[in-house]
């Protein structure tokens, strides 16, 4: 050892724990604690892995009914015929091998008083700390005509899997000359740049395979993530294949009809050959059941500890949270999963939690080989998220293809890293 041991070195003495570089620690209280995590997406899977590596002697249980997770990031490329769905699929074997108990049930109830979770087989799990990573659910009928049966005809493809394939297959089955309609709900929703990346990828597909077809985006938002970059890309690559309508251009959809394949705005009935309805959203169902949602349908949290401001000993991470200016992204969920794991490990060991600096990076493809990015840097002091002034922002406008291609390569590497971080 050539360097002298600094105070920081102390924390890495002991066992090295692999890629995450975490130091296991334990106290009497921590080893007896029961930690339950509901939801095995980017947030919950990361939290489970991180906690088990940090607290090897503590019982960590992950409740997730699906044996395979299908990732949303990069699923737009599947829709555009550029990627196989198998590349989006991840199992829980890696997490299980670490010693996390996987319970393949749906969590149906949470009792914050008795600190128990009720599962779909009527069994219960007791917890000392509960982490909810419930993702999103859809507000059925909030957009008139979009009920539980509508996605069979009008796919949302906003939870990846069968819906992703359905939208892809509908696009592939469409005759050339067809009209594709995409409706975008008012923010907030999962993956703020997601609709616009999807539009780019669909327009690319139409331009390449169905050149007399067109995509019409009906948007409830006047402004959106990476807006100048997307608009620049659309003008350059898809002037004949993509039309974006803002609310002031009659873009706000008030009703859809699955049987008529029609979107209704204030002034127009727009008949589609394929319609992708991105529905209005709220936190995943279990969040409301647990009493951690407010009137917005999302979950207010203490940004320093990720603990619900509505229920003690329940932490919430990922898309379900009110974390603005942090976006509802896989990167955010993964980072929040790590930080929430540190928080829970500290709290059950009777240690304080300090605020920190957080970053988010989201890449979006604009063509099959080029991408753009947005970055944010945040603080979580005093229970609130805030932007760090002078940092963050989007890729440069009018950049060379070389820069856009480099960001596409970075995006592909990012996907490998983030899925490995979450699922091992």
């Amino acid at each position, binding site marked *: 050892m050539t360097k002298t*041991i*600094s105070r920081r070195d102390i924390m890495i003495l*002991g066992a*090295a724990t692999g890629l995450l570089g975490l*130091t296991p*620690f334990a106290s009497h209280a921590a080893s007896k604690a029961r930690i339950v995590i509901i939801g095995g997406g980017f947030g919950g899977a990361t939290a489970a892995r991180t906690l088990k590596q940090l607290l*090897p002697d503590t019982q960590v249980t992950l409740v997730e009914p699906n044996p395979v997770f299908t990732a949303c990031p990069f699923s737009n490329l599947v829709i555009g015929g550029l990627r196989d769905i198998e590349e989006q699929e991840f199992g829980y074997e890696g997490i299980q091998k670490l010693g996390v108990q996987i319970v393949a049930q749906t969590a149906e109830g949470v009792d914050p008083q008795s600190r128990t979770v009720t599962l779909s087989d009527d069994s219960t799990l007791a917890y000392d700390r509960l982490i909810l990573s419930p993702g999103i659910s859809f507000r059925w009928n909030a957009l008139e005509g979009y009920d539980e049966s509508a996605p069979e005809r009008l796919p949302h493809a906003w939870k990846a899997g069968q819906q992703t394939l359905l939208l892809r297959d509908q696009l592939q089955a469409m005759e050339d000359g067809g009209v594709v309609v995409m409706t975008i709900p008012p923010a907030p929703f999962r993956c703020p740049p997601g609709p616009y990346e999807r539009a780019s990828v669909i327009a690319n597909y139409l331009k390449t395979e169905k050149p007399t077809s067109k995509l019409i985006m009906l948007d409830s938002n006047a402004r959106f993530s990476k807006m100048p970059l997307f608009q620049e890309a659309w003008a350059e690559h898809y002037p004949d294949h993509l039309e974006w309508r803002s609310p002031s251009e009659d873009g706000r959809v008030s009703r859809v009809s699955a049987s008529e394949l029609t979107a209704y705005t204030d002034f127009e009935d727009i008949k589609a050959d394929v319609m992708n309805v991105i529905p209005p959203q709220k936190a995943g169902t279990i969040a409301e059941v647990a009493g951690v949602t407010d009137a917005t349908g999302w979950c207010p949290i203490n940004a320093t500890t990720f603990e619900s401001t509505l229920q003690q000993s329940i932490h919430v991470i990922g898309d379900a949270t009110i974390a603005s200016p942090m976006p509802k992204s896989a990167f955010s969920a993964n980072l929040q999963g790590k930080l929430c794991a540190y928080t829970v490990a500290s709290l059950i060991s009777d240690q304080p939690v300090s605020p920190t600096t957080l970053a988010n990076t989201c890449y979006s493809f604009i063509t099959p080989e080029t991408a753009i*990015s947005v970055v944010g840097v945040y603080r979580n002091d005093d229970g609130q998220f805030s932007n760090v002034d002078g*940092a963050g922002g989007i890729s440069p406008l009018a950049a060379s293809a070389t820069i856009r291609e480099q960001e596409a390569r970075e995006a592909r590497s990012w996907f490998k890293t983030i899925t490995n971080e979450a699922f091992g």
Partner: protein
Amino acid sequence: MRTGSQMLVGLAVLAAACSNETVSPSSSSEGEQAKSLQPVALDLSTQSIAASCSGCHSSQMNSALPALDSYSGTDLETRFLAYRNQSEGTTVMHRIARGYTPEQIHEISVYLSEDSDD
């Protein structure tokens, strides 16, 4: 270091790492692990501030995103600071680095290079 010292006061816990070897903060100047049951500072603040890095960077060498544990702490810090200080820079790392103080950059760089020793 602001956050580090806060955590050293706050996060003194009995460590029971797999090696069963722990050191007390007072033994740190000795430069070697000392077998002891003294409280150990567990500095999760450094892990927290470095947690964003592993959202993109892994140990894979064939990545478009460099493996940070292949750099020395000094090298990492120099590069990270350069991103921070190039006011015309537009890459993702330029945009990220501007959000961190030189002290934070030092802390992260030393921590990630320490990891590479494991």
